[in-house]
């Protein structure tokens, strides 16, 4: 028999209570995995999209809701001549409810711009020109909307024909509806307006030169910002809000978990007063008693964490298939997130066991023996 045997035996002998506590922790950890996994997944999807398209710098307005506020498309002409700019293209991006899908990305792209380059047509064709009132749909969006070439799709008040299904090599691209910038401007009553200018820099441009370019753009467009593509996610207000929300909701779940484990461990200590009295009487040190309680709660945390990670991963897989999420993001189930979640669960266990452990170690052996 080892010390760990004693710790495990204490948990196993009350299976219902241990089980219920595990359920409590695992739900909290599952919430962490699901919420943070979605936030991280969304960030990764965007980063991948920018990478696939080959965007080096993104220019947008500072303010806005889900999408940055629109600005005049003439900005692109002012940016194009700046040093180290190889290509520019304007985009109007909107998040709209499309038919049965509560939220879908609609991307209006300047006809002939480099944002069309990496799109490969799976079925059908691309629009013929900048003025053709037609859309192509990413393959995930096509599955969600159940559309194929020849069908129509309702965007705002307009019904547009679907001319092709495309593969954009990134989940955000594949979950989007793409059409010519001019058509989307007209449909959404945003004539002459865009909310992004995407920039490719000349090959061999250094980091310092890109930073200098961003500074130059800032001078031309003081109310906007120019970000290096890799920093879009880190600096975007929207992403920061999403990240804060996911962590703060997770924190609530974690606090509930802490209270659950603490309650269990306190009850365990109260119930085991007599047993702790025996252990003290036979010479166990107070710190060993405390260690026993802490290890029990840490073990509860670890088991709850593993269970929670499994539940969270399952939840994310299910969420991924729902129409609301499908195509919008690819949940992040990286080993890093899973390890962080389990570590959080163990820390929750240890923190929850501190007070019960301290209480148990303070018991008077003679009173505990009679308790």
């Amino acid at each position, binding site marked *: *028999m080892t010390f760990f045997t004693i710790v495990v*035996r204490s948990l196993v002998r009350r299976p219902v209570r241990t089980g219920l506590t595990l359920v409590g922790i695992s739900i909290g950890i599952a919430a962490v995995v699901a919420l943070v996994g979605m936030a991280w997944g969304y960030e990764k999807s965007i980063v991948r999209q920018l990478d696939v398209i080959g965007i080096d710098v993104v220019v947008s307005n500072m303010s806005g809701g889900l999408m940055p506020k629109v600005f005049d498309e003439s900005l692109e002409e002012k940016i194009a001549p700046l040093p180290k700019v190889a290509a520019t293209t304007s985009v109007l991006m909107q998040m709209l409810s499309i038919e049965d899908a509560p939220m879908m990305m609609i991307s209006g792209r300047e006809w002939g711009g480099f944002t069309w380059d990496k799109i490969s047509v799976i079925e059908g064709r691309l629009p013929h020109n900048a003025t053709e009132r037609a859309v192509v749909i990413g393959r995930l969006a096509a599955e969600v909307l159940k559309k194929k070439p020849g069908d129509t799709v309702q965007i705002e008040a307009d019904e547009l024909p679907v001319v092709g299904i495309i593969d954009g090599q990134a989940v955000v691209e594949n979950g989007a509806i793409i059409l010519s910038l001019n058509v989307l401007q007209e449909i959404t009553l945003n004539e002459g307006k865009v909310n992004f200018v995407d920039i490719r820099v000349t090959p061999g441009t250094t980091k310092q030169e890109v930073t200098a370019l961003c500074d130059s753009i800032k001078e031309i467009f003081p109310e906007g910002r120019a970000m290096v593509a890799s920093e879009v996610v880190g600096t975007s207000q929207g992403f920061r809000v999403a990240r804060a929300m996911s962590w703060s909701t997770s924190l609530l779940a974690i606090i509930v978990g802490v209270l659950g484990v603490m309650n269990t461990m306190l009850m365990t200590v109260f119930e085991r007063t*007599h047993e702790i009295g025996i252990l003290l*009487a036979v*010479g166990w*040190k107070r710190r*060993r008693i405390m260690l026993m309680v802490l290890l029990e709660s840490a073990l509860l945390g670890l088991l709850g964490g593993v269970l929670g990670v499994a539940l969270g991963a399952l939840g994310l897989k299910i969420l991924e298939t729902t129409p609301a999420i499908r195509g919008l993001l690819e949940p992040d189930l990286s080993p890093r997130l899973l390890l962080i979640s389990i570590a959080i669960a163990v820390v929750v266990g240890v923190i929850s066991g501190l007070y019960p452990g301290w209480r148990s170690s303070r018991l008077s052996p003679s009173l505990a*023996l009679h308790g």
Partner: protein
Amino acid sequence: MIAPPTSQTGDIVFEARQLAKEFDGGQVAALRGVDFQIREHEFVAIVGPSGCGKSTLLQMLGSLDHPTSGSLTYRGASIPGMPDPSAYRAHHIGFVFQAFHLLPTFNVVENVQIPMFEGGLSRTQRRERAVDLLKSVGLDHRLGHFPSQLSGGERQRVAIARSLANRPSVLLADEPTGNLDSENAVHVMELILKLHRELGMTLILVTHDPSIAAQASRTIRMKDGRVVPADSPHP
């Protein structure tokens, strides 16, 4: 007043001077100025009516409780002033209780190993010693049984084996036969006396039973929290 021991040989193991213990802020006085000495290898029976302070005294000898005033020493060192009372309990004292106080979720051999976690023994050494101890109390055929599967006499024998886990020099027994039928009581007492003789331990035993007290080398009689002066030696 210090009650003189019958045998003047052997070092003084315990010495109490004006030992007092009060509960409930002084409303209840369990011990009222107790004095005694107990020497090495003695078998001392502490007798007296219920509530006279016998068990309280035993708990203080085992550092399970602290006196309100007076002094109590173990081999010259103050018991209440010990920096690490758990080490004292683990290495110098073995306890046997009337209610056995075994851990119900651990089997016999595991119960005996419990005190050994403070003894610095390996897992194998702990198990081997526990098996040896259970052999010595005649329970080596019950190693895997749980306390609920044992008779009262067997439980007390497990408790005795556990009390010897770290080879203490003192055995404190609080009414060890109080929960047993007469036949088991005789067997348990025979075992305790055998261990006392063979291991040379100092044995301090609290009892109501005059026949058990009669087997002690010396009796401390208590009444109303005090030692009754007429100490009666036994041959």
